[in-house]
């Protein structure tokens, strides 16, 4: 009889150990959620795993260093110093972050036939869409500034890692590419730390690592370009991908009934006037997605489709002025068209 009792006790102990062990392994539900204000926008991170806090803080630090190096709003940043010394003989040493961005920028300027160009700075400044006092510059002023815009004119020495702008008044602006680069760096930190699941959003520039903790893909809404923030025209299921959108609704001002938005066409010096109001790129590299979403938005539907054919593993969702939604073939199984407003048409063919 004593034996019996010991047995019962033993099984109790074993069972309770097993159960408590079970609830502890639930730690994969552990996550941190952080919002920081960096690079002129809100950075949201949701990182899963017991070490998530450490990774999230590393990411914040990395983004800080990128911002301090590239912001045109920080006078001491390398980019600001390069810009304010344009036309001077002085060359500037650049770190690997700026180097990587310059390499990528060059690639996408060539691919897009100059629809993407980091030397757009003087025109971005002149239009002032990012300031409290935007205005429409005169035709003469635009033409004058357009002479400064040409990615081929920059003096970038890849071996020595030095850079200068040869023409006085030239300015580089990483606004259409730096957040994508930063997202890639953030994801690198996650992967290095063994993070299996994370959602990182740099002011609308999204990267998802792995699946959600329940092993289903992440569900990303595609902003309705003519509705309030957070209203979407469809949902995309993705894992291990970046999703980046450029649209005419993010920043704009109205003058005499015309919408002047923040994406300046480097070929005309005016806000891009293609047939697109929103262009979303889905791929593995956020720097590519960032540059390509801007480039395709400027190029318009037809030319963008041709460009995408040349690229591997790059998908897109285009929304045109006449409110039609076009998506690339690969995405069709992962996209649910859900337009609450009823104003958009999903073009499944073509």
């Amino acid at each position: 009889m004593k034996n019996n009792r010991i047995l019962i006790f033993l099984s109790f102990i074993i069972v309770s150990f097993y159960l408590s062990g079970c609830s502890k392994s639930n730690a994969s539900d552990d996550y941190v959620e952080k919002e920081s204000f960096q690079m002129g926008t809100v950075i949201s991170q949701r990182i899963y795993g017991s070490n998530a806090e450490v990774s999230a803080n590393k990411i914040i630090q990395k983004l800080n260093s990128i911002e301090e190096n590239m912001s045109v709003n920080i006078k001491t940043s390398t980019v600001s110093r390069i810009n304010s010394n344009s036309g001077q003989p002085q060359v500037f040493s650049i770190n690997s972050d700026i180097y990587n961005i310059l390499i990528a920028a060059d690639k996408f300027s060539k691919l897009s036939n100059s629809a993407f160009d980091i030397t757009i700075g003087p025109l971005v400044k002149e239009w002032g869409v990012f300031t409290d006092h935007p205005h429409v510059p005169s035709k003469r002023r635009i033409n004058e500034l357009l002479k400064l815009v040409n990615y081929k004119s920059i003096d970038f020495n890849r071996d020595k890692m030095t850079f200068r702008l040869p023409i006085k008044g030239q300015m580089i602006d990483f606004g259409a590419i730096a957040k994508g680069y930063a997202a890639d760096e953030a994801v690198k930190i996650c992967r290095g730390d063994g993070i299996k699941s994370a959602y990182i959003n740099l002011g609308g520039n999204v990267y998802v690592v792995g699946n959600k903790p329940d092993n289903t893909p992440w569900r990303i809404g595609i902003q309705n370009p003519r509705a309030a923030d957070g209203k979407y025209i469809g949902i995309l299921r993705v894992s291990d991908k970046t999703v980046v959108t450029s649209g005419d609704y993010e920043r704009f001002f109205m003058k005499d009934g015309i919408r002047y938005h923040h994406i300046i066409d480097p070929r005309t010096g005016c806000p891009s006037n293609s047939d697109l109001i929103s262009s979303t790129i889905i791929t593995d590299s956020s720097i590519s997605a960032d540059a390509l979403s801007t480039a395709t938005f400027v190029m318009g539907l037809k030319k963008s489709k041709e460009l995408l054919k040349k690229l591997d593993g790059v998908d897109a969702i285009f929304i045109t002025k006449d409110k039609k939604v076009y998506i690339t073939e690969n995405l069709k199984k992962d996209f649910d068209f859900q337009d609450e407003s009823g104003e958009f048409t999903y073009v499944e063919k073509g």
Partner: protein
Amino acid sequence: MLKKGDIILLLVIVLGILSVVFFGRENAVSLSNTSGSPFDNLGITAIIKKNDKVIRKINLKSVEKREVINISGLHKATIVAEKNRICFLESDCPDKVCVKTGWLSHPGEIAVCLPNKMIIKLEQDKNQNVDGVVK
């Protein structure tokens, strides 16, 4: 045959195991439930953060009377919560993007005041349709 004492012991053990199972479950529920309120799974919670610190959480479904929240700091801001909706009513920040965003009423919606480092976001505790929106 088992003695009376054995039966009591067994009962205690069974109860013990059951309570562990039950406790374990409840634990899991509260882990996945960000609002911390396990009884109102379909409520929309507005989370107000300043400098990445949560300063208020409001279950919008259960707001009966209009609530005004004044936030001090570099720029003063006023947030108003009503049944099922919330917004930045006023702010003396320079760009007023936060106020222009207007009412938030759907899970996933977000209003941001960059100069004030403030954010209001709406979360639905369960069955949220999307994890985020790209714009």
